[in-house]
């Protein structure tokens, strides 16, 4: 399953052609700090996770904006995988 997901991400999600998503992800500052700490710890020891090449997926982001409210960040996004036919 993880191999399949990795292959899809690298190939630009051909299985999901025609998919469209949008929304707002709300992230509290505590989570941002926790993730930042994990990332810095991994970067310092060379144990950071290895992600697949997702440049072919990021290009499907049609809208992205970050807003700040007290204690949290709001990430607005829209994402669409073009149809292949």
């Amino acid at each position, binding site marked *: 399953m993880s191999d*399949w997901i990795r292959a899809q991400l690298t190939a630009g999600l051909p*299985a999901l052609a025609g998919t469209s998503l949008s929304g707002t992800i709300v992230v509290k500052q505590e989570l941002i700090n926790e993730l930042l700490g994990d990332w810095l710890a991994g970067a310092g020891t060379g144990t950071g996770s290895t992600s697949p090449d997702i440049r072919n997926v990021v290009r499907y982001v049609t809208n992205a904006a970050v807003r700040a409210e007290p204690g949290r960040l709001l990430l607005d996004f829209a994402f669409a995988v073009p149809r292949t036919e």
Partner: protein
Amino acid sequence: VISASQLQGTTAGGTFRVAESAVNDLLSRTRQATAPTIHFEPGNHALIRYGIFHARVRLPAAMEVGVHPRLTVTLASTVVAWGLKAVLTHPYVSVNGRHVTLDLSAIPALRSWQDWLRCFTSIAFSTTEAALAVAFTFQVPE
């Protein structure tokens, strides 16, 4: 691992379009010697093949969401439903008449995803020739 409660206030919606070939590719990766295959047809119909066994099913327009999300599909054949009722012993599957219900909250493999599954406020299905569309809305309560 990020839990749903850490993203309170998050909302999302959209439609996943899944090619039939992708579903069958995933099914072929199961550890069973004979993997089932599925063919989607317009009108929320699908044909499932498993060895010599064939079954026509109709997907619901929408599935139940909430604390106990349930997916109920309707078999075209009462005989097939009787056969399934005799062989399916999983506690998360129930057969009533031609209706087969899958209780997603009771599937062991999905146990760690329960707090995410509860955040779906709607899940709807539609099919076209060789493709499945799953429309959803999602909200993590504040």
